[in-house]
């Protein structure tokens, strides 16, 4: 649907089955190719090691485990991602607060905007880009 997102391989990490289905449909509507969904940290790490991923949407609480290890693996590979969570931003561990967050529940258009922002070329400061993406979910 949207040019910039069309054909992008998006890793989806979400442990709530119904929500995972919804997000899969949203990503498909946006023209993305869904990788996953992964519901566990190990699953996601295995996918990242084995497959090509352009972008990622990460739920934070995966059945009691946080997805920060996945965030680290994505950062190490230079794959931009957005957290998708029902938690307020200040509940994120301090090291991860600079990453963009989509507050659940959100609309397809908010997801699209957040992902497009991830693809924008890095402006002078990383902080401002992340701030901008973080403001997207309104």
């Amino acid at each position: 649907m949207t040019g910039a997102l069309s054909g992008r391989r998006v890793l989806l990490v979400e442990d709530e089955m119904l929500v995972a289905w919804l997000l899969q449909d949203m990503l498909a509507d946006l023209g993305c190719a869904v990788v996953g969904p992964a519901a566990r940290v190990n699953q996601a790490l295995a996918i990242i090691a084995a497959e090509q991923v352009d972008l990622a949407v990460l739920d934070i609480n995966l059945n009691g485990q946080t997805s920060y290890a996945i965030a680290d693996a994505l950062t190490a590979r230079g794959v931009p991602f957005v957290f998708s969570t029902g938690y307020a931003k200040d509940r994120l561990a301090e090291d991860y607060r600079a990453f963009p967050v989509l507050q659940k529940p959100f609309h397809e258009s908010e997801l699209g905007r957040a992902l497009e922002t991830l693809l924008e070329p890095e402006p002078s400061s990383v902080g401002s880009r992340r701030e901008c993406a973080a403001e997207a979910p309104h």
Partner: protein
Amino acid sequence: MSAITMKSADQKDAESNVESFRKELGPFVAATEMTSMAMVFTDARDSDNPIIFANDSFLALTGYRREELLGKSFSFLMTRGAGPDALAKVEAALKGSSECSLEVRCRRKDGEMFWAAAYIYLVRDEAGGVVQRFASFVDLTDQKREEDRLRFLLDELNHRTQNTLATVQAIAVQTLRGVVAREVVDAFQARILALSKAHGLLGRTNWDAVSLRDTLDQALQPFGLNDKWDARFTVQGDDVRLQPKTALTLAMMFHELATNATEYGALSESGEGRIDIAWQVEPTPQGGRMRLRWEESGGPLVEPPRRKGFGSRLIEGGLAQELDGEVRIDYPPDGVVCHVVMPVTAPVGE
């Protein structure tokens, strides 16, 4: 005498001080010694504020033995390792010539940190000079722990509410997609999201009072409010604090009005339409009364709806009841006008 049992001059002074209290104040000293509130007296004539008396509760709170305390500097003892902030606070309180209370993080002898509310009073002699300081303490450790636990529970509850709304959204979309028109799915989804965003706003303020401006911003942002390329909204009025339930109700109302404006009213054709939102609070014997007006103009010619949809039912029926006020929607040809009259508590900042 060995060095271990030798008493310092300070300590001897302190002990003789207590002896003199005991003679003069008999029953009061006994009461102070036995009360469950931790208390110390310091000698205000010495710049170090050495401790000259500490009751049993203070010993229990801090874990020190009495002989370890007497003659020691009070501020050093209380803030050992507790950070320069606490030390500065205590120093300032002790130097001050007035009485004060403060919350400080202190350290027990065994190194454990604890929170205490400290109340510092001045004891004056007959000439009015400050001769002693008297400090009493309430251990706040349990209270702080309880506050943290409540904060955690509230965060969890907010998180679960949002996740549940996300699940409701997912179920609705999976159930309805392909069965009903796309607009129906979108309208349902938009209402769930409006409710969720209002909940999110309340969660961020700990379900305390919320500002009307924030509520408006949150509800109307998806429709272009505060968008720098979109000047179709004006908002005028001094900010007002809303009760959580009122904020939720108004957020849903703004969502319905804006949705209606997008479909039929001022936001339906890109261009000339605009929405002016303004309110005033007037004092009445029963408290503040707010009059809020949502006025559309410049959109297509308005015709009153033939049938009341969910939006107008919600606004005129449900909301009037929930807001304990009056809500009316008019459909003049120039644009929809919605009037709300409702009680409010206080303007923001009061």
